[in-house]
């Protein structure tokens, strides 16, 4: 396996959890609910996935458990924010704080234990293709699932009646209620889908990316996922682009930080100068680069005001109380 292939593989693995979590939050926000608890739900998923895989020996059961725990945990948010109409921002933040603390407590015994990694699936024949073979046809199951999710979410939102109803609820909950649509019911389902996705994204971290449990191992990925949704103007394919851009720059800057300039002497003059220039930057700047680049690119592609307006859920984050 060549160096480039290895880097591309790591990029896919680093981007997958962002993609899954962001797709879940996208559906939540399209229904008009802002759940800032993604980070907390991911951590709950990560610790559950790791624990269940460890005790049963099956990473599949671990992933399934993570999905369930994520959904149940998000239900807590749903009950508070939807039924008791608490402030969504505050409730979401509380969920993140709770998830961070609770997962740390549950995972005390897991620290330092070797985990169970979900094995890759190799599609015979295709996975032997040069360069792209491993990348596209020899990945872990969650990679495939994440791509399927993008297609499924996109199809659901824009091609099905249920998706239309969900977007309508997010656009104008008052009108949706007046039409007899169960606003709260749909929002519960969306919130739980978001929770399930966040749980699975957390499990990807503890079962695929780095098969171990470390306290607070999401390291802010939940927040990145939240930001991706907004900057991608609530559109699934843009979330995919954003997640991969972020993953790519994260991995690239790690390699740049690690590489020895002397090894690059084979490069032609200008490229060598560029590499040397990048390398001379402070490492803190390089670490911040993925954030800067992703925000910049997504802001640039969402400059079409009209499209942004059409895709922004107009009732996002506002409480809904049916007047009866």
């Amino acid at each position, binding site marked *: 396996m060549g160096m480039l292939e290895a880097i591309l593989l790591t990029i896919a693995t680093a981007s997958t959890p962002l993609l899954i979590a962001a797709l879940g939050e996208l559906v939540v926000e399209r229904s008009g609910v802002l759940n800032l608890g993604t980070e907390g739900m991911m951590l709950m998923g990560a610790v559950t996935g790791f624990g269940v895989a460890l005790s049963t020996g099956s990473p599949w059961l671990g992933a399934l458990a993570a999905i369930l725990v994520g959904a149940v945990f998000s239900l807590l948010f749903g009950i508070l924010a939807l039924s008791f109409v608490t402030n969504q921002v505050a409730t979401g933040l509380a969920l993140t704080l709770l998830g961070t603390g609770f997962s740390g407590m549950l995972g005390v015994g897991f620290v330092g234990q070797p985990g169970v990694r979900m094995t890759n699936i190799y599609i015979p024949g295709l996975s032997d293709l040069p360069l792209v073979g491993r990348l596209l046809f020899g990945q872990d199951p969650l990679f495939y699932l994440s791509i399927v999710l993008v297609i499924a979410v996109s199809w659901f939102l824009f091609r099905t*009646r249920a998706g*239309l109803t969900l977007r309508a609820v997010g*656009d104008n909950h008052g009108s949706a209620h007046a*039409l007899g649509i169960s606003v709260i019911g749909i929002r519960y389902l969306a919130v739980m889908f978001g929770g399930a996705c966040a749980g699975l994204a957390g499990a990807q971290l503890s079962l695929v990316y780095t098969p171990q449990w470390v306290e607070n191992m999401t390291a802010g990925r939940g927040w990145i996922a939240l930001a991706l949704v907004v900057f991608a103007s609530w559109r699934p394919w843009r979330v995919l682009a954003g997640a991969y851009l972020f993953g790519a720059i994260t991995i690239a800057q790690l390699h740049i930080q690690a590489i020895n300039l002397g090894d690059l002497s084979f490069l032609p003059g200008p490229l060598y100068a560029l590499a040397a220039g990048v390398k001379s930057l402070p490492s803190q700047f390089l670490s911040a680069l993925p954030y800067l680049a992703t925000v910049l690119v997504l802001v640039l592609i969402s400059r079409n005001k009209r499209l942004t307006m*059409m895709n922004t859920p107009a009732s996002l984050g506002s409480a809904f109380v049916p007047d009866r």
Partner: protein
Amino acid sequence: MGGTVSAHHDAETLLEVRGLTKIFGTLKACDNVDLNIAKGEIHALLGENGAGKSTLVKMLFGSLEPYSGQILWQGQPVAITSPGVAKKLGIGMVFQHFSLFEALSAAENIALSLDDGAPIGQIAAKARALSYSYGLPLDPDSLVGDLSVGERQRIEIIRCLLQTPQLIILDEPTSVLTPQEADKLFETLERLRAEGKSILYISHRLEEVKRICDRATVLRHGKVVGHCNPREETAASLARMMVGSEVKSVVRAPLEGIAQAQTLLEINGLSRKPATPFSVPLTNIRLAVRAGEVIGIAGVAGNGQGEFFEAISGEARQSDAAAVRIRGKDAGRLDITGRRLLGAAFVPEERLGHGAAPRMKLSENLLLSRHATDGKAFVGTGGVTKSASIYNAAQRIIEVMDVRKSAPDPEAAALSGGNLQKFIVGRELDRSPAVMVVNQPTWGVDAGAAAHIRQALIELARAGSAVLVISQDLDELFEISDAIAVMHNGTLSAPMPAAEATLEKIGLLMGGAEPGHAPHEGEAA
């Protein structure tokens, strides 16, 4: 009595309401209301704002739960617990506003209210066919956010008809239409009646009720105060039933020597790019308002009136300083306070949020809008406010405008819409501004208060100020304006003197006919 009317009296009852009551806190919004709607009739529900019409209708459509009372549908008692139940029974509703999804296409909006799960393409084709058969052409693929208010109402009507309802409820349907569009709507309604459908028609426009309705039920303060045949009544007798007393009519003193009067407000080639994808651009607007006159701006909602008001008031500033001139000074680049200091006063359309801060007291709201213009009276040395003099000024306004309130100095949000509007208008009138610009002066205000506000605006003008009134209510504009200009799609027609203006001429301009440049006295001559 016409033959058709008596026929309806014998017709089978479709919906019967007995003793329906709805209580909000201490307010009885509907008090023991009885209502009978026969098959194949257009039944008017009349009443002022706050009389309980909307509450009653929401209970019939399942969006509100009655406190007590009974609803019978074709003789059977029913519990309409949600709009879904109402739709299943065969009750359809065309909402006054705010019930479409702006970010979705017309077909998607229609699909949302149908339960059959048919593909969007099929629904779009059905909607298109139905809309043409009723003469209400509709493009199902267009985005609702791009459509005019009249077109949006078509979507609502088509959406309602596709559900094949027996009873169609229309809530103030003509308030957003040009007179010609309204005529088209009446034709549709008459056709529906001929097909045997029943219509509950909510309105406070008495002429149109007289024209198309077979029977009327009048509500006042939540109670049924009468039933009548509107064709046998006069507009005045219907108004008396609604209000409970005679409504003082507005007196407009003749306008004299206007040709020599000084221009106080001047708009010179004002243009504005749309601020959001759904707002209207303004194109080269010219207008002069002179001392002593009231100029009215008519137009179907959403044709740029809001954007125009923002540009005059300074909520949105212009790059061209001469685009807005107040008392002969360039004001285009000034902010709201700067323009107020030149002697202008503004009353925005939205009472809560724009006109007043909802959770602040009336006296505090007074200070907020007038701290700069009345700095000496209200603010002492070091920026300390003089609460006693502010309080007294607020009380003065309350007295002059007859604002009814529950506490000496209540929060703005505690007042009813009409009373708060009287206070906001009074707050500006109290300054005797040289230029007064008002957007929808009496929207949602009861007839008594509306007459008071209109009279006050005319008197301000006759005392030597320039008054500009933007309104969707044509009756109001005809009542108070010396000349009427029409805004359509961001352009403004030349003002037409009141003596020449007819409902038909103004209606054509509202619908986008080429503005016939009626010469404004003393302008071109």
